[in-house]
């Protein structure tokens, strides 16, 4: 009896035909949808969304894929079903009138099962199903909740035989069918229906942790097809069911060479003067009041200035508060908001569960198509679930943003300086650039410090920098290294002053030496001048003496010649004496 109904000849090892459900995310996990023309089992506990999923499968099939569907309802009353359909944005009555969806109610009187007076079968069920299918030309059927039937009839063996017949009947007609079933304690479903539906089994789950409930979905098996095997969180909101991840979770995103500015010129300098890589993931972590939000806002404003779009998720401050605070730093966000470059979406983290936030982020990103996304702070989200869960969510979110080529900045509040939150540890390997901001308390004052903890692919500065938040933005200060590391605040000012006075002293010394040199030169020159003057006077004296001597000599000679002439003596030439003249 309990043999599975595998029908191997209709199952091909690859390329089986699939029917898209139209449910966001589910078709991605199943790589195309549910097995076409075959039954799929959706099982889960009470209130986990089975009926809605079955109905969404039908409604979306009818509207998006032109496949009318029959809803075979064993449990819900018409009012509830109509409400489900209207929650998807459609009117059940209108769908029924236009023959897109037909609902067939099968009331099983569990309290008062009909007396069995002999042999019977469930021919009535088949006839009704066939009739409903024929009346609208249905290609899809949802049966909710099939095992209710066990409450209406005593003969379980016969019921099981009839279910086998039902599933064969469905396969023979090639109707894509979804069957919902209650989750059991031991086996997958309470009545072991998975034994009959061997093609595809989807498990839904609804767990509550820290008073926040999380719905999860898992494809338990999918014969003949590859499928995601993880537990995927899903949520039910005004658009029906959305399963995460929407499309990502692979590591094939493109790495960009392009760089994007941090929005703070001197911070850009710490990243080779160019800023972050486009499409990278940046974590700005720090203690309270250390300036994380300001850094994030300058980053998103820089994107707006470049003509890109920035999407800012604020979980702690309202948009108007952010705008006011940034105005005090000389950053006016209003023009960017007005021209549609910047969108600030603020919500309290506690209004939704973690997965609803993440789905919301997905949706907003897909709608707004930003190049920059800021999540401020991420720690508000991570406080909402257990570490494992949060990490897997963040991994998917980061993968998603990377796959879209979005440069993402996560702001994270740290408890005490130096300590790291477990979630930060968990995602640190996913972070490309990690900027740590912190307060230091020294000299009875607090100052802000910033350093780049890591930055993949960038020869980043390893210096710890002090920065000031002033009325004209964020300034990174020059580096002054004091006896105990980088000097900040007043000790930096003191070092600056000391350096100034040292400079002054040096300048004075240099000036003094220059003056001294000048003086010495002047002394030397004066001495030279005096020597020259002395020489010149001596030269003059000597020349005068020489003249005298020459004159005297000539006089003597002339006198002698005159005397000789008078004595009529022989007069010789003035040999040698003419030379002496020139002396």
């Amino acid at each position, binding site marked *: 009896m309990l043999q599975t109904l595998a029908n191997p000849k209709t199952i091909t090892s690859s390329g089986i035909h699939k029917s898209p459900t139209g449910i966001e995310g589910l078709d991605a996990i199943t790589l195309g949808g549910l097995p076409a023309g075959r039954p799929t089992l959706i099982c889960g506990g009470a209130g986990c969304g089975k009926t809605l999923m079955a109905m969404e499968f039908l409604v979306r099939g009818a509207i998006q894929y032109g496949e009318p569907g029959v809803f075979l309802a064993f449990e819900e009353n018409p009012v509830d079903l109509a409400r489900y359909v209207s929650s998807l944005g459609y009117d059940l009555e209108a769908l029924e009138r236009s023959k897109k969806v037909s609902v067939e109610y099968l009331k099983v009187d569990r309290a008062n099962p009909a007396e069995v007076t002999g042999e019977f*079968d469930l021919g009535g069920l088949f006839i009704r199903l066939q009739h409903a299918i024929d009346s609208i030309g249905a290609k899809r059927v949802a049966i909710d909740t099939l095992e209710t*039937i066990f409450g209406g009839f005593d003969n379980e063996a016969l019921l099981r035989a009839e279910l086998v017949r039902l599933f064969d009947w469905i396969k023979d007609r090639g109707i894509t069918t979804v069957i919902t079933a209650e989750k059991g304690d031991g086996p997958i479903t309470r009545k072991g229906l998975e034994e009959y539906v061997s093609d595809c089994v989807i498990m839904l789950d609804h767990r509550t942790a820290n008073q926040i409930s999380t719905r999860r979905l898992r494809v338990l098996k999918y014969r003949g097809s590859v499928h995601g095997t993880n537990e995927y969180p899903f949520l039910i909101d005004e658009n029906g069911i959305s399963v995460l991840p929407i499309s990502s979770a692979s590591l094939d995103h493109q790495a960009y060479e392009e760089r994007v500015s941090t929005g703070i010129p001197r911070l850009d300098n710490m990243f080779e003067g160019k800023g972050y890589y486009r499409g990278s993931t940046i974590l700005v972590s720090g203690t309270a009041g250390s300036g994380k939000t300001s850094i994030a806002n300058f980053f998103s404003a820089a994107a707006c200035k470049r003509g890109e779009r920035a999407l800012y998720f604020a979980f702690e401050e309202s948009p108007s508060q952010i705008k006011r605070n940034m105005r005090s730093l000389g950053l006016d966000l209003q023009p960017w908001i007005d021209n549609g470059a910047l969108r600030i979406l603020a919500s309290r983290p506690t209004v939704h569960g973690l997965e609803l936030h993440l789905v919301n982020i997905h949706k907003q990103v897909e709608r707004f198509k930003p190049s920059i996304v800021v999540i401020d702070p991420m720690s508000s989200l991570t406080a909402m679930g257990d570490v494992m869960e949060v990490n897997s969510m963040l991994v998917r979110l980061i993968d998603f943003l990377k796959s879209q080529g979005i440069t993402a900045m996560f702001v994270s509040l740290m408890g005490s300086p130096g300590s790291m939150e477990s979630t930060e540890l968990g995602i640190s390997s996913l972070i490309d650039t990690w900027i740590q901001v912190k307060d230091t308390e020294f000299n009875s004052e607090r100052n802000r410090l910033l350093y780049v903890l890591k930055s993949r692919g960038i020869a980043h500065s390893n210096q710890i920098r002090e920065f000031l938040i002033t009325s004209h933005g964020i300034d990174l200060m020059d580096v002054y290294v004091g006896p105990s590391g980088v000097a900040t605040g007043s000790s930096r000012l003191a070092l600056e002053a000391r350096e100034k006075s040292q400079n002054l002293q040096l300048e004075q010394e240099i000036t003094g030496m220059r003056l001294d040199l000048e003086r010495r030169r002047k002394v030397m020159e004066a001495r030279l001048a005096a020597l020259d003057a002395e020489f010149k006077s001596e030269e003059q004296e000597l020349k005068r003496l020489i003249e005298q001597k020459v004159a005297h000599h000539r006089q003597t000679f002339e006198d002698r010649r005159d005397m000789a002439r008078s004595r009529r003596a022989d007069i010789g030439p003035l040999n040698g004496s003419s030379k002496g003249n020139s002396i």
Partner: protein
Amino acid sequence: MNPGGGAIKASPEASTTRETFLFRLYIAGRTQRSMAALDNLNRLCEERLQGRYSVEIIDLLEDPKRARADQIMAIPTLVRSAPAPFAKVIGDLSNGERVLTGLKIGKAL
């Protein structure tokens, strides 16, 4: 209805039992089981409700829409539509005791 009801003709119950019973027998085609159910029903009625019953046979293969009204899933199904209370039994009606119990018809009839 009083299941252990008295069999005295003068009792008020007896007056209700004088009403005509209306039955609907749902079948799907003239199968062996359907025919057996019809035979069993006729025999039982002749034994217990002579002249005070009427049976409508509904073949769902011919008129599938009618399955909705009485919420028919099992074939065959016999419905007691009058007098009150409404009652339903399933199967080929071969177990007469169960038919009577299921249809809430007293033994003494």
